């Protein structure tokens, strides 16, 4: 456990020291949300109706930006080789790194979403819900994304390839994330989509490290 925590805290510390990655992701997030009303026309009613979807899609894209570096920096400087000689199974190495990505990128993006909601004329009452569903859905984004990052570690054209591999796999997260907000906001007030979203995140936390670890082991030969 101490090895897991050591790795987690090292990755978080690096994220803070390097700083740039988070700033870029947040800036990108803001920019996409700004561009969409410019492209769609600034009809406030339309915007408030599509706001949850816009915020989710922009968040997916912003998270995707920072995913490429999750394993590649450790691969390039030889750290991954040494991590593999630890007592921590590769699955937990992946888990620690994906968790660090969630904490350092997923949570800040989720925190940012309500602020951007202002730009999209989203009702104030929706903010806690929006933040809550994003908090519930972003682990799936980090962990599914980790699989894509692991698969493309040694691929040329890594960045674009990750998007092609991972975005189709984000479809359930997107749909249930949207449905969760609509369900909670709507008159029905149904929780089912929100619960499914949580289940999706939990399942990806458990299953994705298996695939990512297998992919990493193959590439360390």
């Amino acid at each position, binding site marked *: 456990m101490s090895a897991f925590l050591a790795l987690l805290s090292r990755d978080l510390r690096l994220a803070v020291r390097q700083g740039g990655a988070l700033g870029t992701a947040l800036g990108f997030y803001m920019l996409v949300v700004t561009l969409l009303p410019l492209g769609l026309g600034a009809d406030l009613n339309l915007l408030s109706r599509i706001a949850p979807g816009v915020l989710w899609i922009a968040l997916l894209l912003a998270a995707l930006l920072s995913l490429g570096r999750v394993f590649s920096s450790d691969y390039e400087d030889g750290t991954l080789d040494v991590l593999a000689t630890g007592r921590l199974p590769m699955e937990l190495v992946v888990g620690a790194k994906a968790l660090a990505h969630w904490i350092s990128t997923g949570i800040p993006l989720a925190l940012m979403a309500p602020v951007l909601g202002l730009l999209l004329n989203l009702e104030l009452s929706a903010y806690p819900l929006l933040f809550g569903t994003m908090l519930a859905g972003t682990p799936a984004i980090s962990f599914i994304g980790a*699989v894509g990052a692991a698969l493309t570690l040694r691929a040329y054209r890594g960045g674009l390839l990750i998007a*092609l591999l991972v975005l189709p796999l984000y*479809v359930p997260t997107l749909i*249930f994330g949207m449905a969760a907000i609509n369900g909670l906001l709507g008159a029905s007030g149904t929780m089912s*989509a929100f619960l499914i979203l949580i289940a*999706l995140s939990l399942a990806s936390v458990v299953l994705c490290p298996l*695939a990512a670890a297998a*992919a990493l082991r193959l*590439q360390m030969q």
Partner: protein
Amino acid sequence: MQQGYLLASAGLPVVHLRFSAQPLRSFSMTQTLTQRLANPTRFMELSASVLPWVAGAAALVIGYGLYLSFFVAPPDYLQGETARIMFIHVPCAWLSMAVYAIIAMSSFGLLVFRHPLADVSAKAAVPLGAAFTFLALVTGSLWGRPTWGTYWVWDARLTSVLILFFLYLGLMALRSSIEDEALASKLTAILALVGIVMLPIIKFSVNFGNTLHQPASVIRAGGPTIDTALLVPLLVMAVGFTLMFVAMHLKAMRNEIMRRRVKALQLAEVERAQASQLAAAE
């Protein structure tokens, strides 16, 4: 011949089945039937004799199916003549999913059993599956225009087939962007397995929205709801397309095995050139 070593040890008298670009080295009587079928050389012999028959059967069945679909099947009482698109749309849609299942099974065979033919099968099937998925989308949209009045609706089934198409594209893109072919095979296999786990979840999520599509009508409890006059041509076409896919898959696998043999030969030539250079230097 052997490299220098400190302590001699006898070579293990075990036949190792492993993935390689070449056929297995030697065969003993202890091999099981599946191992023997796994031998690419054996596969080449078998497929050479089977392929013409499968291809011929596919041509005959599809020909008969086309005759049925155009000259025997009556127009649908609701959709009229356009229902004839169903006879090619449904087989393509069926193959789009069946081929992905074959890829997933082959991937499993490669990763778990290191079956030497499994990767050849997976690699050969991906472009074929992508093509059938593409055809399912195009024919579906051409069917949708007269029926729904629009080329595309965001209905659950169409959307899942579209995402399936993206998964196929991902498999092709990943394989083509990794230089080491053995590594590319295994990573693509992992992606294919991730895909097969995600597909039902994607389907389920997409179903969360409303569906305009007609509910599954061929296979369902209580018997098919399609009129037999339409069902017979549909089934004939489905069988024909499946046979055609089998023939194409066999041919693509044969090509892939030959391509790998060519690579092995090229490599052998490089090594030989190196050796003669070395001998000349000494």
